[in-house]
């Protein structure tokens, strides 16, 4: 796990109507293909409709059980309210911005690395 192993993907929300379906397919393809952890960026989104909710759940389903994580970066309180109402925010960490997400994750990742190394050294010594 490396701190730079995170990629930022913009969320194709309802307001971006042109090529919406393509963008959604692309997002799901990238989620399937990438080995990196993902930050979904909602900074261009002001609203979510039922297709957006469906896509979000599919995104979460894509990463569940795999060795990668997804987090959301949403600066809009309305989006945050919606993520809370749908309980998605209890499944996925939500940050105010991509910068905040990266900042927090950079702190968290070295700890994970250290923990992994400690576990490995214990295992070898045993």
């Amino acid at each position, binding site marked *: 796990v490396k701190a730079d192993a995170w990629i930022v993907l913009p969320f194709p929300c309802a307001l971006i109507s042109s090529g919406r379906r393509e963008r959604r397919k692309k997002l799901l393809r990238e989620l399937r293909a990438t080995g990196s952890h993902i930050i979904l960026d909602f900074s261009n989104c002001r609203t979510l409709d039922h297709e957006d909710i469906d896509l979000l759940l599919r995104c979460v389903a894509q990463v569940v059980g795999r060795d990668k994580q997804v987090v959301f970066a949403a600066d809009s*309180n309305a989006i945050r*309210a919606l993520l809370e*109402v749908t309980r998605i925010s209890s499944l996925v960490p939500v940050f105010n911005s991509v910068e905040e997400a990266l900042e927090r994750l950079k702190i968290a990742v070295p700890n994970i690395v250290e923990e992994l190394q400690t576990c490995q050294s214990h295992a070898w010594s045993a």
Partner: protein
Amino acid sequence: VRLAAVVVIPEKELPLIHASSFHALGASESLYSSRMPILGNDLLQSWSQLIRKLGMKSLWLTSAFRQGTASFSALAELAGRGFERLLMITLKSYAEMDLADLLRFHCEKRNSVTEAHDARGQLGVCLLDHLALAQMKEESESPEARNGHGQIPYSFSGYAKRILSTKERQELVADGLTGACAMRPVGTEVRENVWIGPNVSLADSARVVAPAYIGRGTVVRAGSTIGPFASVEHDCVVDCGTTVERSSVLPHTYLAPGLLIRNALVDGGYLEHLGLGIVADLEPAGLASKIKPLCKRAQMFHDSDSDTVFPAGNVEAWHVSGQITSNEWREVHL
């Protein structure tokens, strides 16, 4: 002295909800309206009960846009109908006030205007003599402005709650549920601090956590949780697995399955989040919507178990009151 009770309904600009569906709330924007039911009661009903205790047979309704008080010309018009004293109540607070005591105080102090105050200031309850109206005409003042001119205000120390926002409304809901005020939920207390209205359909696996209120005709489906500090008003549907806590759901609202409504007020498809201070439109996401009443007139205030103040003929007067303009008067018989 011929006394008239005047209830002023503050009209406010509707929330500016555009195609963008979401917007941050400005200081004066909220889903809150004084006509929203509170635990099956409404503010006008509470005040009309107090007015009835004075032995009055009717009250006069008018509305005021934004400023929250009746205009001078509107009051002068009512005084012109032969009333010598006006008891003016603006629907912006709930107060357990003895209006007879206020009247006595007004007469004893020989005030021409008596405004009721509590520790936080004016409560929107005011007694006004026709002489004061004449003086106001000369000085072009509002009733509130008169109060600063040597009049002794009536100090009220009982339970009072200003209700100008959703947050304050939610505080009153909590007080009503826990018995901190005299407002009781309309329904039966099935266990301590759990109130259920008539014809409520509650699934076996649904949980109601005290304190909570479920209004008449509401359907709560399997796996849902209502409470604590939750109020679901009449004729709502809470679908499977949805949780409503520290929140209010207004009449005729459908909530989709699996939601978490926390610290919010939901009115049809709109949700006002009290913590985040925003109004969100849940309808495009299919999460909530307004249920169209089958027969509006028959459903509203037609519950034989509830202590309904208005006879059928006057209910309509209340429900159309939103259309009353600030210079219009409507008499409602109690």
